[in-house]
């Protein structure tokens, strides 16, 4: 009998034929196991969802209260048609998980997105031994090496303080799930209060409903005065850059948080006053060490600089392969990836069924706005 691999790559997503479920599918399916709540991994329209406990409220907020969602703890085992599914921390954003799939002694792990540095906000990444590792490699080139986040947030807080001294408002831009919370947890409240864009505050509220403790934040409304804001700091999603919403804080200094800020060209395209190299993805060394730690026999690379990273891994002794997926829209401001087809998400893939996400919302910025934002 033909022996199918436990997981395969289909045009709907990563599929387990034996267990009859998909992992992060981008087409509607019956059973979807979700690594994390970013829009390029958690699509609407599936019949049943399985995710980590801490993704519960954000998924419901993003995909609708009525989704059929089962949540689990890290390490907890779920059986589906004889296949064992369990989740392990990916360290990407709150609630993010690597999906471990086991059947008859064969173990596959799907990383989703991950980073190896402990950001103090989400459960730190944990390497999981496996035979087959399906990994992202958003920053899979050796030019990407992150500084420890403590250094980075010292810079952010110093910049904020300096803006306060100059009477400038401070606007810091980062993706609404993940980056925003990481920023807000590391801001020095001694400087002032934290104000948030509606989209970010909605996510914060969802996380708080989920039992996550976050520093106090204040949602910006019509009633929030410009003077008040100038004494604090604003956290805004990338989609707010260059909008009238943001212009009303003028004069301001605006900082952009993204791994792409490592490159001068990308930084200049963004036209931000400050570019902070802050990413929720593993850098080059992080990727290599994470893959090595799995002890895997085969690596599959889903998104990022897949071709060069696969070649490098092969040269250092891994059996590495590129695979084709639709992931990779969330790291905002991303230069489109150099895969031959260049599959960025386009409008057709965007789910805007959830009316709570305002049109100016920060959910899909990475996918639709490729560097066009300037002030």
């Amino acid at each position, binding site marked *: 009998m033909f022996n199918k691999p436990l997981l395969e790559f289909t045009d709907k997503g990563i599929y387990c034929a034996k267990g009859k479920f998909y992992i992060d599918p981008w087409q509607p399916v019956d059973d979807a196991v979700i690594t994390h709540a970013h829009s390029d991994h958690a699509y609407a329209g599936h019949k049943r969802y399985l995710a980590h406990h801490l993704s519960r409220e954000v998924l419901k907020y993003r995909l609708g209260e009525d989704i059929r969602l089962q949540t689990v703890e890290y390490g907890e085992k779920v059986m589906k048609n004889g296949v064992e599914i369990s989740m392990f921390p990916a360290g990407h954003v709150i609630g993010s998980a690597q999906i471990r799939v086991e059947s008859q002694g064969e173990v596959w792990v799907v990383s989703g997105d991950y980073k190896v540095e402990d950001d103090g906000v989400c459960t730190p990444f944990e390497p999981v031994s496996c035979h087959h590792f399906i990994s992202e490699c958003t920053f899979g080139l050796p030019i990407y090496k992150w500084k420890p986040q403590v250094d980075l947030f010292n810079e952010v807080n110093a910049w904020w303080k300096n803006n306060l001294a100059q009477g400038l408002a401070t606007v810091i831009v980062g993706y609404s799930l993940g980056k925003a919370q990481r920023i807000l947890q590391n801001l020095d409240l001694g400087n002032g209060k934290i104000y948030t864009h509606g989209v970010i505050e909605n996510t914060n509220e969802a996380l708080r409903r989920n039992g996550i403790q976050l520093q106090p934040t204040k949602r910006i409304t019509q009633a929030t005065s410009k003077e008040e804001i100038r004494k604090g700091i604003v956290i805004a999603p990338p989609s707010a850059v260059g909008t009238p919403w943001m212009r009303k804080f003028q004069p301001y200094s605006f900082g952009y948080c993204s791994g792409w800020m*490592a490159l*001068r060209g990308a930084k200049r*395209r963004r036209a931000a006053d400050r*570019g902070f190299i802050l990413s929720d993805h593993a850098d080059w060394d992080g990727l290599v060490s994470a893959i090595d730690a799995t002890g895997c026999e085969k690596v599959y690379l889903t998104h990022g*600089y897949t071709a060069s990273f696969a070649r490098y891994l092969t040269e250092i002794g891994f059996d590495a392969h590129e695979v084709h997926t639709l992931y990779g829209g969330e790291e905002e401001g991303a230069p489109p990836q150099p895969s031959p*087809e260049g599959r960025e998400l386009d409008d057709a893939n965007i789910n805007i069924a959830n009316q709570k996400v305002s049109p100016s919302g920060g959910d899909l910025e990475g996918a639709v706005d490729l560097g066009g934002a300037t002030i």
Partner: protein
Amino acid sequence: MKAFAQLFTALDETNKTNEKVKALKDYFMRVPDTDKMHMLALFTGRSPKRQINATQFRLWAMEASHIPAWLFEESYHVVGDLAETVALLLPDHEYSSSKTLTEWMAEIVALNNLPEVEKRDWLTRSWAALDRQERFVFNKILTGSFRVGVSQNLVIKALADVSGLDAATITHRLMGNWMPATYQFEELVHTDTAIEDVSRPYPFFLAYPVQETSTVQKTPEELQNLLGDAGEWQAEWKWDGIRAQLIKRDGQIFIWSRGEDLATDKFPELHPFMQQWPDGTVVDGEILSFKEGLPLPFAILQTRIGRKTLTKKVLEEGPVALIAYDCLEYDGEDIRYKTQTERRGLLEGLQHTTPYPEVFRISELIEFDSWAQLSQIREQSRAMVAEGIMLKRKNAHYQVGRRRGDWWKWKIDPLSIDAVMVYAQKGHGRRADLYTDYTFAVWDGDKLVPFAKAYSGLTDTEINKVDAFVKRNTLEKFGPVRTVKPELVFEIGFEGIQKSTRHKSGVALRFPRILRWRHDKPKDEADTIETLKAFLGEGPI
């Protein structure tokens, strides 16, 4: 080096003029004078001679960063800048160095006589002592590609604020072939017109365009509104050559090109008439290839500029002449304060007495009574092998740099053709990792023949759209170049066209650029090679 790297970063991080000036002033206040001169040299394009070539630099960078050559190249294609790629790839620095910019520059110059191994050791040691920010700037200096996102005007403004001198004086004193090793900051900012360098040119006065875009023509009424009465203006043809300043002082002659390169040796034909000039003469004009009284295509001049030695053949094929249009120094006096008309009078006097009127020419004035008449005359530009018309206010003095108001260029429309994009390549700098450099083709029967490369003319939004198209429609990859599904049509503008044996299409264009994206045109309706060739002979080239 730390202060210099911080300055560079501060300038890089802001788009605001006053913040840039502040960063520059802070720098001038905190570094020693010799560092100031090195900084000014670097900021005004006076980089030291390259001591480590690109091949060595790449190779040693690969060794120091322990990565294979192909991965280095992949990284380079994403970053789009060699100095930055290397700064990012090297391992973290081991210790830090407090050497000043002056000390570093001295070490770089001293590499000249060192054997290769020692150069490599020096480079590896240097990298280990510099953090990422310093390394980037250091690499830029070392590879001779140091450029900074700040105009010379801002540097001069900051320097003027710090020294109390006026900007025009500083601009002038920063001209010429000074070296930071021999030019003291004290001399630069001394309030007297102290020690003068005989070769020093004046800052060029540059014209502003009458119309920013070529699609909408200015009407005579609009010119009247913009410029006032036609009678207040002098008009000349706008020549397409090399802008140059010719100096005779102390029995020596100097020819400076607009890029502030000393090019005296490149134009021996001009020496005899310059030798005839009295000492203390400076003339501004355009160097063109001339044969039998007519300008030759710019391409001919271009091939000449590229040569290290000028053979007899080259001199015969593309002899040059000067079309003079202004006089800046007369009888040893700086006469830039005189009116256009007065200066013109002195220039004409100088030119009338020359025994070499064939090579020392004067830009003839165009007679006209009204803007309407001049508009008509402008239509003959191509026949005159000119790019259009120059307008100069009769009572204006000669100014510094590009200034609105008294000198205008009124160029003719470019020639244009609708072409299909067939190849794409990633850009550099701000456009690194985006497909921004395109090759265009026209139809030859049912085949597309590439004929021009262009990389400017689109907005950022359009570039993003084309970039996405390229990524989704790549047919083949050749190194950094992608063959793209022929589909997108663009209107390509160019200044001239010439037969070429080096190009497949048989033609070479001058200044090709994208005028607009023709969303309305399907690829089948793009132009043909016949249409393109029909432009041959419609100079200037």
